[in-house]
């Protein structure tokens, strides 16, 4: 019994959400998916430990959820869209979560992204045909 290797495994710093990760993190993602319902969010907040047990999280997963260790939740294979339902209401954006992988703050992460705007209009002018107001 082996997990198949993929062409994308070699891409640096990239974890593709495939069968192997989806299988490993199924209970975590299922718990996060339940947060679409307000009654589930309330039930979790009232007794997080019991809620984790209800979804069959193993000890390591439970520890990460209870300590809101978002980085390791993602490293454990959770899908970012599902984890967003857990971290965003707790004041941690998807960008903050992404930044943690590089050990930088969300603001530093956003500043790096903003640099993409430098020279953009000139680049588009060179390309030709782009709207620019």
């Amino acid at each position: 019994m082996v997990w198949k290797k993929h062409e994308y495994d070699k891409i640096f710093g990239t974890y593709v959400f495939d069968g192997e990760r989806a299988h490993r993190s199924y209970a975590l993602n299922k718990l996060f998916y339940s947060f679409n319902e307000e009654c589930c969010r309330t039930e979790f907040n009232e007794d997080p430990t019991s809620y984790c047990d209800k979804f069959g999280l193993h000890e390591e997963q439970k520890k990460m959820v209870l300590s809101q260790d978002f980085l390791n939740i993602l490293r454990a294979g959770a899908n970012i869209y599902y984890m967003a339902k857990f971290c965003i209401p707790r004041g941690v954006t998807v960008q903050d979560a992404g930044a943690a992988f590089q050990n930088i703050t969300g603001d530093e992460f956003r500043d790096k992204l903003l640099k993409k705007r430098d020279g953009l209009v000139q680049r588009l002018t060179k390309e030709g045909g782009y709207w620019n107001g």
Partner: protein
Amino acid sequence: MANIIGGVTTSHIPAVGNAISQGLTQEYYWKRFFDGYNPVKTWLKEKKPDVIIIVYNDHGLNFFLDKSPTFAIGCADEYQNADEGWGLKPTAPFTGDAEFSWHLAESLIEQEFDMCTCQEMLVDHGFVNPARVLFGDHEVWPIKTIPLVVNTVQHPLPSAKRCYKLGEALKVAIESYPEDLNVVIAGTGGLSHQLQGERAGIIDVDYDLACMASIINDPSWFYSQSNAEIMEKAGTEGIEGIMWLVMRGAMGDKVNCLHKHYHAPISNTGAGVLLLESAE
């Protein structure tokens, strides 16, 4: 006969909806992005299409990972938006066209695209934000909608080429519907972005522009790439660009580009807007 009058591409990220809700669209960060939609909005107001087919991926509202259809189509009279877990106020419901949807499903399945047919479907930000950015907010939406969902979340995903071929089949399906309907297709998502991993935050402007040029002039460049090749350049979430190919496949061999717009960054992404008409 139903007729495809245009194809549009647009981002669908949550931040776009937040910016609209918070009245930020004319702030410096957002202005260039939103203003770039004005020619498309004007075109839509002039042409008044009857139906828009929005090609998007669900992010864990309607579908959970227990059942993850590769291609799914809404076949209902109405689609509700709902809270995705962040407490956002849902939009007004969208009117569907069940007869048209079922015709499309039948035709696509006849053409060997085995669609998952959905008689109830909650539509998430991937669907709602394109509608909001193209038509503004409404209590009664000015157009009927059909959601077409592509799995871009839980691999294995369909290939870029398969998405293009789905678009070709969609064209056949639309054009074999007897009612006179003017249809627009929106390919949503992208462009380059990656939300997690040490490489999170990549935006590859050159690659994004190459993809946009390919969508207009030569889609085979885009769809000849494997999903691994696309993700290496565009990031794990940038793979959403394959949904643009569904729209493009439905537009026929040659298109006229009426408008093209690109902006970066919008949140984590490069964002491209195209308005295409068939040149056949």
